[in-house]
């Protein structure tokens, strides 16, 4: 019930997401979860770096990767982090419409990124670079694909929360959920920065 009494007052310290104990737990728990996710991606990166030259005569990264396309995808995803920050800013000022707008933009940018990635993968498969073609292929798709799956999950998640926020408004119950989803989104972004450097840039260098 406490959730509703706070509905129309801006939080004192400017952070609605940690205004309740539940919220504090959620935010801390999510930070820890991101720690686990970091290990998960670290293992995938390690595997990729160990296997990235095992192309078994198939196309190499240097041959495959198109930096222009990847740079565009990177720009889109980085921008979506910014819009996600703007959404959280609006949330803490209890501006529901503004928040929904920026969340919407975030989701659209995420979708744009995903479309580019799918296009890229289809292109690679035509070039003979598949999940089964070599150890390089397996580790590439495992790493980049896991990231893509995370983006997909994030899109569905944020859209779900937008629906809920539309119905319930910005409450102390919604705020931690929204905040945590934006943390997740930033995390995916950071992982992508590493993918961009360690997969694509390094792949181009050879």
């Amino acid at each position, binding site marked *: 019930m406490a959730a509703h009494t706070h509905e129309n007052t801006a939080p004192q310290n400017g952070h609605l997401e940690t205004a309740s104990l539940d919220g504090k737990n959620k935010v801390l728990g999510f930070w820890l979860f991101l*720690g686990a996710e970091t290990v998960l991606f670290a293992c995938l990166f390690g595997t990729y770096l160990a296997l990235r030259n*095992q192309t078994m005569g198939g196309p190499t990264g240097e041959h495959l990767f198109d930096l222009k396309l990847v740079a565009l995808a990177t720009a889109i995803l980085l921008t979506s982090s910014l819009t996600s920050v703007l959404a959280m800013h609006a949330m803490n000022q209890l501006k529901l419409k503004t928040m929904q707008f920026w969340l919407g933009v975030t989701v659209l940018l995420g979708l744009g990124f995903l479309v580019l990635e799918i296009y890229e993968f289809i292109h690679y498969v035509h070039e003979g670079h598949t*999940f089964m073609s070599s150890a390089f292929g397996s580790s590439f798709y495992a790493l980049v694909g896991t990231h893509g799956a995370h983006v997909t999950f994030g899109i569905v998640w944020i859209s779900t929360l937008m629906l809920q926020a539309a119905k319930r408004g910005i409450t102390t119950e919604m705020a931690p959920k929204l905040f945590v989803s934006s943390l997740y989104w930033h995390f995916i972004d950071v992982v992508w920065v590493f993918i961009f450097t360690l997969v694509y840039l390094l792949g181009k260098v050879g």
Partner: protein
Amino acid sequence: MGTLIVLLVLALFLTAIFTGGYNKDFLDRVKTSKVWDWLTTVDHKKIAILYFMSGFFFFIVGGIEALFMRLQLIVPHNDLFVGDTFNELLTMHGTTMIFLAAMPMIFGLMNAIVPLQIGARDVAFPFVNALGFWLFFAGGLLLNLSWIFGGAPDAGWTSYTSLALNEYSPGPGIDYYVLGLQISGIGTLIGGLNFLVTIINLRAPGMTYLRMPLFTWTSFVTSALILFAFPALTVALLLLMFDRLFGANFFDYTMGGSTVIWQHLFWIFGHPEVYIVILPAFGVMSEVISTFSKKRLFGYTSMVFATVLIGFLGFMVWVHHMFTVGLGPVSNSLFAVATMAIAVPTGIKVFNWLFTMWGGEIRFTTAMLFAVGFIPTFVMGGMTGVMLALPPADYQYQDSYFVVAHFHYVLVGGTVFGMFAGAYYWWPKMFGKLLDEKLGKFHFWTFLIGFHLTFFPQHFLGLFGMPRRVFTYQSGVGLETINLISTIGVFGMTIGTLAFIYNIYKTFKVEAQAPADPWNGRTLEWAIPSPPPEYNFAQLPRVRGLDPFWLEKQAGNKGMTPAEPLGSIHMPSPSYLPVLMSLGFFIAGFGFIARGNYAVGILGLIVVVITMFMRSFEQDHGYHIEPEEIEDANKGVQA
């Protein structure tokens, strides 16, 4: 799959019939039944019992597998369980004991005790806690179904590739391993996460970090290890699944893969895992030894420091399992030094336990016996550990029975003794009844003697050259007597365990309720009734120092001083979603294992996604327990 559905419907009918016919109140009856209550509970004390009971069940299953193996090895050239069957037994024994017996028993104790020790009414995420249990259980069940449907995994609990690839392990065995452990691993991960947040955020007023009981501290570090180690297993299993089910090439040399990657990933998880299962046992020992020596734990701060250090170093030593891979002298030396360094904090702990007992008023209860028996046993395991940590020597020991002896000294002598000590110590708090001490002592002595009889000789088996994981040996090379003795010892452990089971049975029949504080305890859990009410503390206690309950008793107070007025208490509502979601994972896992049934797999995943949405949209405000009810309950306890 059809069979499965038929079975489910049949089970539903049978419950309907046995509970009084299928009619309109059937659903009502289900909802008010005990079974439903346990299926949907989010109370950490009930989840503790679920963990404990299923962990003990799997402990028995794993024990029977071990018994079968020792029976096969009782004489040379035996033909009781040979070849694949033996491989299945040894794989399932190790996997079951580590993942399905040790882990849940630890989580059981953590659930039962940690919230009480920090003066909390609940854990941070009761729903996640329940989900963690049901995922573990679904995974464990899935893994064990392999015995019936298609054959058990047979590549060892470490499941090394290439042995674990399709080429050398056809059939679904390893698929059960991969998906069963994946599902139960997710459960463990979120369980650990829950305890981290609980301990950080829900400590009672005055319960600073350096006033936390040692069991809470070790649970805290263990949870952190779970959080950072299990994702490595997740990735390892994921990659193996890709290789086996979807034609990827991570571990296939002919396609550029590398089997060493599996070893790295597995041991980056695997070594922290052995500390995950030993640290809570250290915690139990610290509590038990301090209580039954009637002394404050010696060197509390150094104990905490040693625990954290062990946790930290635990991540830097995994290559000691891979000395013979040939990673080179530099890497072997570095990891050897790091490994030996762990012996230092471990030694600090051992001396602290000894000094705690020194000059104490010692009472040899069963729990204390297990704790005292643990010290020399574990030290021996540590000694052989340091021997194994020398790479040149390890080239001799690797994959021999010497390693088997080492890890059973630490795992049984450490973890299992710790869990037994914890069971005898906290049984009254969990169930409100005291276990029988006489039977307990019988249990201790038979188990201790049986244990040493089984595993001490195995050091020599190893030194004399008997390889591990092989189902037979030659006669006339000096291995017969030692193997015979080793098998005889198993009966000691079996009798001890049977005595424990009988003890549990007997205790449930006894009427007498345990008092709130049967052992003259020191920590917060003994300040509340046994078993505690569902809200644990009617009023949160104010903690004034280390061993808070002891301090109050010393000051002449009967209980803790409350830190808040009596008020209405908020409780989370029960939920059936954890079971449903775990069922979804179970079906998905089963579908992927039964290859060609990907539709079933996807159906399971859809169930998972739907339950996730249901959870997300659910607005659960829980319920409140009012002060009047609490006062009534308090009177009931005192009367």
